[in-house]
């Protein structure tokens, strides 16, 4: 099979040759007087996978390979000779493996071919195998890159969903606690009457909707604080994760230098954080209005306070004196529903699917 081919045909474009015919089984056969099997890249790939599954070319036998591959029309004869060639050609393959890891993820085709050419006893048919292998590796690297991006994004979306759920549960619990305490009567400090609270509570608050919380905030500083803190805390994190803030530069959290080789989309989909140091101790740099907002969230530990404050500053909240709750939740930029696809300027999150999540 291989020795009959001219070297020029080893460019992977088997389908273009007029003398090839694709049979019912999916195998590509030549239309010579004596039909021969063409080992296409895909078929060879399946062969290699099957061999790998069986523990390598030395352990695999044509029979077992045939069984594992499960390709109709493939006979033992085909496999016998292909396996023999593969075994002969396998030796230099090992060098590729080491070569590529030593040099980093981009094994240059030139290096590999040079390596190959220098090995003694190379026959053209093995050269063809080598070339195929090289192409396969490069193709694989590109695939890996693409897949990694998609996988990380998928993971990010999933994280978002569990975060939301956790917030909702928390809000629910606190709401339950609040109503229970209110019912008891004396549980609340401040000016909350039980009736006013239950009126204010209303329907279970969705962490993303503002009006109920605004109402609540007017009244007290206990449970509402908890809800406020968590909701806007997490909402702010979301904002950062999805990169709504136009002012943020495209810097992956913690990464000092941008990597031009990797897709921008990955970083955009991930947490953005500027490298600015926020000096927590220098409180004098905070505006008074922000300080009032911070002081409201009294039950939170001081560090988390500062965290909230930093998030606030970043998202550009404006505040005015005196108005308590509302401004914690005011946002100049329009809210984005967290259930819509994660922001990705290059297109859909998951290719080929139209409803990524929710």
């Amino acid at each position, binding site marked *: 099979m291989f020795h009959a081919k001219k070297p020029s045909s080893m460019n992977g474009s088997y389908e273009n040759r007029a003398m090839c015919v694709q049979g019912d089984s999916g195998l590509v056969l030549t239309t010579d007087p004596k039909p021969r099997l063409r080992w296409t890249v895909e078929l060879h790939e399946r062969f290699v996978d099957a061999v790998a599954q069986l523990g390598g070319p030395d352990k695999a036998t044509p029979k077992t390979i045939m069984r594992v591959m499960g390709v109709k029309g493939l006979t033992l004869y085909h496999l016998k000779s292909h396996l023999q060639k593969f075994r002969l050609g396998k030796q230099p393959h090992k060098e590729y493996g080491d070569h590529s890891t030593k040099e980093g993820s981009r094994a240059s085709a030139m290096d590999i071919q040079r390596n190959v050419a220098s090995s003694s006893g190379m026959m053209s048919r093995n050269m063809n195998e080598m070339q195929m292998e090289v192409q396969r590796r490069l193709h694989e690297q590109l695939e890996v890159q693409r897949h990694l991006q998609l996988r990380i994004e998928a993971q990010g979306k999933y994280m978002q969903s569990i*975060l939301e759920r956790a917030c909702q549960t928390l809000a629910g619990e606190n709401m339950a606690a609040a109503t229970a305490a209110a019912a008891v009567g004396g549980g609340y400090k401040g000016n909350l009457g039980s009736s006013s609270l239950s009126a204010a509570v209303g329907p279970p608050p969705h962490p993303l909707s503002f009006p109920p919380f605004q109402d609540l905030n007017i009244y007290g500083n206990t449970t509402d604080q908890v809800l406020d803190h968590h909701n806007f805390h997490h909402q702010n994190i979301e904002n950062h994760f999805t990169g709504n803030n136009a002012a943020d530069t495209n810097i992956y959290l913690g990464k000092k230098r941008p990597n031009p080789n990797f897709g921008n989309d990955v970083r955009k989909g991930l947490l953005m954080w500027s490298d600015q140091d926020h000096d927590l101790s220098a409180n004098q740099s905070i505006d008074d209005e922000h300080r009032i907002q911070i002081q409201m969230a009294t039950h939170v530990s001081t560090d988390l306070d500062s965290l909230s404050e930093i998030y606030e500053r970043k998202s550009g909240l404006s505040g005015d004196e005196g108005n308590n709750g509302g401004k914690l939740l005011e946002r100049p930029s329009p809210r984005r529903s967290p259930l819509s696809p994660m922001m990705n300027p290059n297109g859909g999150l998951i290719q080929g699917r139209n409803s990524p999540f929710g």
Partner: protein
Amino acid sequence: MTMNYPYEDFLDLFFSTNTDTLATAASTSSCGYSLNDLDIDWDCDFRDVIESIMGDEGAVMELETESVPMLHGQEGLCNSASTSLSLADGVSVEEPKTDESKGLRLVHLLVAAAEASTGANKSRELTRVILARLKDLVSSGDRTNMERLAAHFTNGLSKLFERDNVLRPQQHRDDVYDQADVISAFELLQNMSPYVNFGYLTATQAILEAVKYERRIHIVDYDITEGVQWASLMQALVSKNTGPSAQHLRITALSRSINGKKSIAAVQETGRRLTAFAESIGQPFSYHHCKLDTNAFSTSSLKLVRGEAVVINCMLHLPRFSNQTPNSVISFLSEAKTLNPKLVTLVHEEVGLMGNQGFLYRFMDLLHQFSAIFDSLEAGLSIANPARGFVERVFIGPWVANWLTRITADDAEVESFASWPQWLETNGFKPMEVSFANRCQAKLLLSLFNDGYIVEELGQNGLVLGWKSRRLVSASFWVSRELNQ
């Protein structure tokens, strides 16, 4: 690049004869104060000891930022007395930087506290005193890496101390973080460091390769926590399979009632989240929750379907509800092996597995590990960054405390083998090779983060992520050695 460090040498530096000096110096109150008076001039007590250590061996510990591989430096020192002497001269002549000397002092105190709290020379009073002093010196809002690290370790040790010695330990309010905060911190950590995703993505890639031609996939997950790992697996399956060739995914998650109701509820919640996610992307999926009453696992608790490919997934590299006692892991792996899994993935931290080396050794190892982790975070985010502080407090602090509890556990629970891969190797598992694609992916993942992370091969069948010269987390792949009926 090799990553080995001479622990024996390192221990000698500290504990050859100086331990007694350390213990007796404080207890005999050489400066004339009583132990209960916390105004002891600690410098007076310890400086002599510290200087004697430094003078004898010429050891300069730099656990500050960017200087994790201190043992590498000391390798040279230990080998020749002459070198150490000359270095000792150098050290005593010039005034050490305040930060360095403080860092050094903190480490000494931590080790002293650790040692005082366990082992043959156990002394409750001494431990209490040293811990009090440590608390004075550090807080988790401090400026330097070393101080913060020391703060977390101090807290962890204090909790241990209270657990063992105080009748009614007060529950510190700041200890209990709600689930939402923990998840936030976890997400932040994923974005700060490849530590989490290295384990998940490497394992997932290996799984995908192993089940490429299977119609039904059944994953048995030892400790699923939030199930984050499976989001990317589902996405990969969905984008690979179009049309009728969709592969069906089934996940069985284990929970152990020993770990409490909260862990059981968490596993159920994870199931709901995963089911919802799978539905949203169109992946055929079903979830089963296998409740175990004890740490022992038996395959009869699982529901198996004919013709499915079983994959065993064992993630041991992140803090969990449970303590993941070695016996429970062993029971799980031994039993699961009988299912003839297509693949067994194991991800574990490179910490403190050598049980018969004693508590102190494991403590130092733990200190190194977290020191490396802190350094790796520092490289990306400065110490003042609030996100980092948040992650440290909510996530890493409890993680340290959890680990400290594990390494002080009874001997019965402590691992007696060098590492999990070693255990698997000698208990009927065969290594499974790591693919080219997996190696590529790991390197790509690292390229998203700061320089300093490296990935190495771990034998034939694994990859290990490290920060500079310290190994952090390893992923390895196995199958059963024999086919079982």
